[in-house]
């Protein structure tokens, strides 16, 4: 479903991604962990071309983007359609109701029939457990509820891949569970997902593969069991120790 080759990204002099290679099968959930500044968020944003990679190729769902060549706006938009992003700060449109937020993609952009799109949007709201919040504005919802609307908005685009950028980092601790549950359900339905997160429980419970990134490279990869219980690399061990330390403070 996803095939990434030699992905590079520089901001001016600063090289943030130093050659990422990754293949993801359809229906897999990949969790990316790593210290801040490791490039994991940039990596995810490159897949949706919110950041334009400097070099390399990415194939998603049969569509290839070659970043060594300039891309037209049309090509970028077409490639972007393959995936949908869920943001750390939800980024819902504050002047639209939950339902309108979800309809914006299918109706305004994809020009789908409004009645059908609405039916589907309501089903999505139901799926994320918010069928009674269709007419609420984002500011009337809790962080967890807003993020679930964010997930529904992304799903409404019918992407082949869902990208999650630290979807629970901005949430109060008691609201994390409801968002992770929705994500877990998606995993079980066979959605292909790439998730950048600090939630190790989610990684352990839902990931098919865990990537540990540091300094713009994938340092270690494997099943959750391999990465968490038998890490091979020094840097992975150090990172996991640090995280476990804070868990016990």
């Amino acid at each position, binding site marked *: 479903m996803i095939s990434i080759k030699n992905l590079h990204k520089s901001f001016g002099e600063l090289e943030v991604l130093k050659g990422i290679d990754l293949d993801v099968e359809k229906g897999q959930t990949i969790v990316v962990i790593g210290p801040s500044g490791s490039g994991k968020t940039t990596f995810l944003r490159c897949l949706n071309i919110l950041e334009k990679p400097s070099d390399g190729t990415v194939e998603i769902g049969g569509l290839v983007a070659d970043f060594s060549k300039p891309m037209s706006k049309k090509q970028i938009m077409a490639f972007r*359609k393959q995936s949908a992003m869920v943001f750390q700060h939800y980024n819902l*449109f504050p*002047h639209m109701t939950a339902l309108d937020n979800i309809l914006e*993609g299918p109706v305004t952009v994809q020009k789908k029939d409004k009645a059908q799109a609405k039916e589907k949007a309501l089903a999505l709201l139901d799926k994320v457990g918010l069928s009674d919040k269709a007419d609420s504005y*984002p*500011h*009337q919802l809790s962080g967890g509820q807003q993020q679930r609307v964010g997930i529904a908005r*992304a799903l409404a685009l019918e992407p082949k891949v869902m990208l999650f950028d630290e979807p629970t980092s901005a949430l109060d601790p008691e609201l994390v569970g409801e968002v992770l549950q929705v994500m877990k359900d998606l995993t079980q339905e066979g959605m292909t997902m790439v998730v950048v997160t600090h939630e190790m429980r989610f990684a352990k419970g839902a990931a098919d593969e865990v990537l540990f990134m540091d300094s713009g490279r994938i340092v270690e990869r494997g099943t959750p069991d391999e990465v968490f219980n038998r890490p091979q690399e020094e840097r992975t061990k150090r990172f996991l120790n640090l995280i476990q330390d804070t868990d016990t403070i």
Partner: protein
Amino acid sequence: MYLNSIFSNPERLERLGDIAQSSFLPLIEAAVQFTLPLSVISFILGLFLAVVTALARISTVRVLQWIARVYVSIIRGTPLLVQLFILFYGLPTVGVTIDPFPAAVIGFSLNVGAYASEVIRAAILSIPKGQWEAADTIGMSYSQTLRRVILPQASRVSVPPLSNTFISLVKDTSLAALILVTEMFRVAQQIAATNYEFLLLYGQAALIYWIICFLLSLVQGRLENRFDRYVSR
């Protein structure tokens, strides 16, 4: 002393009352016929110009940025009255003759366009980057993003400063009197020239300007309330 002389002289009081009464209708007429249309038309055209200018300023195209900067700089750096005089009295010298009303509309629109463009630019820049990204990720084009996401939010932020611009504009239209537009202030001048009751006529004009601006500030309050429905307080 002036007031003394009025109140000690019932005949004069009566004369003032008559003049006030008879001049009230022509003043209101002039306001409805010229002051308000001049304000509204110039504001709408100016707002359009302001959005275009603001977008040019934030675009990545250097030439557009530059044109917008020069335009704003010239308009803000020269007096409105001088601009109106150039349009109406200056341009005929090079063969361009514009009637008073259209000349005033052009002058005021250019003015609103420059000042409001800074308001709108600031309002657009105040919208978080995440809103642009969310629009990107659902596949919106640049113009869809502006129309559906950015400008609706920016307009909420702009209501108070743009109301200021509009209220200033209503008062500034009195300058059009000097390029022969028979708006309210010019009518007041014309009536005063026949009866020499300057204080009365200009006072009446001032009162009507104040009433218009007061009503506008009420409209501003309502607009702000309407926009606030989607913002937590």
